[in-house]
């Protein structure tokens, strides 16, 4: 997979390796926290989605990964939708809560986001670049208490 994307993009192999890692982390989180994360808008960058698409095309390996290697043991479905359409249903505040929901769960499973993970997670990159939050501030985010 790394060779496939290294051959087709200008990205360096170690960058592509990290993209694949973050794609797998995304899928792990969906599998591990199905009730909380399944059906939420993709929190990672489009390039990571392309890796997921490529994985889906390897049908046998994808099914094995989902059903036998990931903790939830279920096939992770995929559906395309534009964010403009997606966010209309939950509304602004809920859509934002959903986007932030990934962060504490990621940090709990994999540790704080580092500089190499930063470019791949849209929410984290936005918080860092647009909201001026440090990676330590981002790692310290607590989940919202249940209503």
């Amino acid at each position, binding site marked *: 997979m790394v060779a496939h994307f290294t051959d087709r993009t200008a990205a360096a192999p170690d960058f592509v390796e990290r993209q694949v890692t973050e794609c797998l982390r995304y899928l792990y989180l969906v599998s591990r926290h199905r009730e909380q994360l399944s*059906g*939420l808008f993709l929190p990672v960058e489009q390039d990571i989605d392309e890796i997921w698409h490529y994985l889906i095309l390897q049908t046998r390996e994808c099914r094995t990964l989902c059903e036998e290697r990931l903790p939830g043991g279920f096939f992770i479905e995929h559906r395309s939708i*534009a*964010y403009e359409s*997606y966010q209309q249903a939950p509304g602004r505040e809920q859509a934002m*809560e959903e986007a932030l929901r990934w962060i504490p769960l990621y940090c709990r499973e994999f540790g704080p986001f580092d500089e190499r993970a930063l470019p791949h997670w849209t929410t984290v990159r936005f918080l860092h670049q*647009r*909201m001026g939050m440090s990676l330590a501030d981002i790692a310290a985010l607590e989940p919202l208490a249940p209503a």
Partner: protein
Amino acid sequence: MDKLIKAMTQDDVWQNWVAANSAGAAAKDGCISAAPKTGCISAAPKAGCIS
């Protein structure tokens, strides 16, 4: 988290957030884990496939 959500749903930040998640801003087609891209074209030589 509550304060952050309030800050991020202010109009100016929200518009930037939507842009960061939208196609056209070097960003996303948009996908969730659970309708399809309505078409694909082959832009590269065949990679080769087996069943």
